[in-house]
């Protein structure tokens, strides 16, 4: 069905054309809706409970971040990327810094790289905890949300001690880190690593074995590996379908090659496998953090970078493995103090495109589950 036909069929104002005439009911989910994770608008064409058509309308949170970049200095754009995926601000920051550093040809000191790894993995944990809480809430279980947010709080307090902010941290600078680890940082992070696995077990005890949870997630929102690749889906959604593609292993950046960790993959490509993959990723993140804290080298935390950054003329694309998938930055420099063009490849936006494929023919309740399992953040989708 073309877009025009679709919108025409939604038009109930035409004489003799009401939704009662057809068997289909058009349900407008969002932009204000409890489970569209922000301001996503989903138009559903329903036959009873069955979803016959689905259309995403995005842009309600569009702030023109990519355009703003063209009026900021290279360093001045740093805080803005935190506002993309605000559940894992540090990961966005890492990607942008790596891209500018590649443009400049700067080598980041080892200590800064390790610090970056610790903080990004903590952010991955925090992001997955937000996902877990809200996803389970969408499916109807209220309690895990509070457990997940309680544990996320400990991570946020580490951020707060490190850089003063909890959510939009702006922890990294071009060339390294702005702050060194505060006294007691290592002990605190290691204690967190000890405390979290039992908590993850607690989520598992609450959710994983639950019959209702299994019924609600198994065989829901299936996507095949081939479809994943043709939609260029990345992150846990891709790994849930059985493709072990993780940029941290495939194209190691920021010293990820130093650490030992596994890439959890699913087999079924359904909501349950994606859930298992993300929970396992949390354990792997803890593994990485442990190694990074134990092996944290001494030395400077920031490379020598000029005060006014003027990268040479050229373009660069750097992608990192953000909690939600491949987060890429394509930067174009005209040699001036401001970026000529910044293009973000947001994993949420690209993963969201599979919603129609995954949700068509399922039930209304599944649509909510699928939006949850895609783990989108509208700040990143709309930019």
């Amino acid at each position: 069905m073309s877009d025009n036909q679709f919108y025409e069929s939604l038009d109930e104002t035409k004489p003799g054309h009401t939704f009662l005439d057809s068997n289909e009911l058009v349900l407008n989910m969002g932009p204000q809706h409890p489970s569209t994770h922000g301001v996503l608008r989903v138009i559903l064409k329903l036959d009873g409970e069955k979803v016959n058509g689905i259309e995403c309308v995005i842009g309600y949170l569009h702030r023109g971040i990519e355009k703003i970049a063209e009026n900021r200095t290279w360093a001045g754009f740093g805080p803005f990327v935190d506002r993309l995926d605000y559940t894992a601000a540090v990961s966005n920051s890492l990607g942008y810094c790596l891209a500018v550093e590649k443009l400049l040809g700067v080598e980041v000191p080892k200590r800064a790289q390790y610090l970056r790894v610790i903080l990004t993995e903590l952010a991955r944990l925090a992001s997955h905890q937000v996902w877990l809480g809200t996803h389970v809430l969408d499916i109807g279980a209220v309690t895990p949300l509070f457990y997940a947010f309680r544990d996320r709080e400990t991570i946020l307090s580490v951020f707060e001690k490190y850089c003063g902010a909890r959510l939009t941290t702006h922890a990294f600078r071009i060339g390294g880190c702005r702050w060194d680890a505060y006294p007691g940082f290592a002990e605190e992070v290691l204690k967190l690593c000890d405390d979290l696995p039992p908590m993850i077990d607690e989520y598992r005890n609450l959710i994983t074995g639950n019959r209702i949870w299994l019924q609600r997630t198994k065989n829901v929102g299936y996507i095949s590996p081939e479809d994943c690749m043709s939609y260029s889906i990345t992150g846990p959604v891709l790994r849930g379908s059985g493709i072990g593609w993780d940029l941290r292993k495939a194209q190691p950046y920021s010293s990820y090659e130093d650490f030992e960790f596994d890439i959890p993959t699913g087999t079924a490509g359904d909501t349950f496998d994606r859930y298992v993959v993300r929970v396992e990723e949390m354990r792997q993140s803890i593994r990485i953090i442990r190694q990074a804290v134990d092996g944290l080298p001494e030395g400077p935390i920031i490379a020598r970078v000029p005060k006014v950054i003027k990268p040479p003329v050229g373009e660069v694309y750097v992608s990192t493995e953000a909690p939600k998938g491949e987060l890429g930055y394509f930067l174009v420099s005209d040699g001036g103090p401001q970026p000529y063009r910044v293009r973000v490849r947001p994993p949420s936006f690209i993963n969201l495109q599979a919603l129609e494929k995954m949700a068509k023919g399922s039930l209304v309740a599944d649509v909510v589950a699928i939006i949850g399992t895609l783990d989108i953040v509208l700040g990143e989708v709309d930019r």
Partner: protein
Amino acid sequence: MIKSFLGYLHSGVTPGEAGNLIWITIYVLLVFAGVSLGVMFMNWFERKIMAHMQVRMGPMRVGPHGLLQPIADALKLIIKEDLMPSNADKLVFWFAPVCVVMTAFCAFIVVPFGRTHTITDMNIGVVFMLGVSSLGVLGVIMAGWASNSHYSLMGSLRSGAQMVSYEVAMSMAVVSAVMMTSMVTGTGTLSMIGIVQAQMQQHIWFVFSFFPVGLIALAVFAIAMVAETNRAPFDLPEAESELVAGFMTEYSGFRWSLFFLAEYTSMMAVSSIATTLWLGGWLRPFPNLLGGRNWDLAFSLVPGLTFMALALLCFFTFTRMPRIRAMRGDTAGLGGLACLLGVLGVVMLLPGVRDRVQDIFWFTSKVAFFMYFYVWGRTTFPRYRFDQLMTIGWKVLLPISIGVVILTALIGVRQDLFALVRR
């Protein structure tokens, strides 16, 4: 007239049987007030229990430990602007909450809080309760239709389908309990009071009858009653993450609070059915194991002692309240509550009162037990999907409940045969 007014007190029957209009009126008012108070308390209780299960505090600000929160909420709902969508079907929109509340409260006409503490004793009590409580679905469908909103419509259709399907399994479970009433005495009854008396005569609560048949019947009923009242994990009609608030989406203020009231009232009503049919209604626990006059006396003291214990708890908290100016009102309130509970406890220990009160006490605590399970389930489970819900209703619960009915009948026939042979 005064004579007839006082005559009831010594009659030992329900006011309905006594035909005493004044007492009937008083009882209706008492039950209405009691249930409404129960709903308010339940609101606080649910929020507190959910909060503590979810590592948070729950209401703490209005009154000591948020005890006055339900009153504040009710006040807020009453003074809130009453919105009616411009495209709504005005009359139906207005009538829907009234219909829901009326049916929910009507069910309490036959609920036996005690041998004499019932508004009236109908010979078809159980059927009346099931019938009246299933009328509530009319109001729900009316609300969904009149709101002229897609969310409401879908919510009410879901609700209609769900309530009708679970009614079947529920009624089958009830049938098995009703059959049990005819076992030893040979006279089956549908009257709520009769069912409890049958359990008294058989010296067993029906939940333990022909173990595990009674237990399975109760389990089926308990699951069906959660679905029937649209509570988690079967809360699809008001599934927040899918349908915003289901059939209540367009309602606000006082009208919404009526739906809320009806929901909790019908929760209590179905819990009362379960209590009456399987848990021995107003009967005290362990009549066989701990029988005899001394134990009777001991158990009749329990209500008073419970109130005293609550009073002590309040007093303990009262002594531990922070001594600051801002908390002075709360502290005084808590002290007052402790005194009130203490006085009530003492009154309940008086001989004349304790015999009349203990029935109500046991009945209420059994209902409270079910209410706790409601809350527990709500915090624990994810929500079922609609097709899964229907599968459970028709393909799991209904066969089980029919099986239970057949089993009960077979066992009953066998027992009767034994009785015949012995004779």
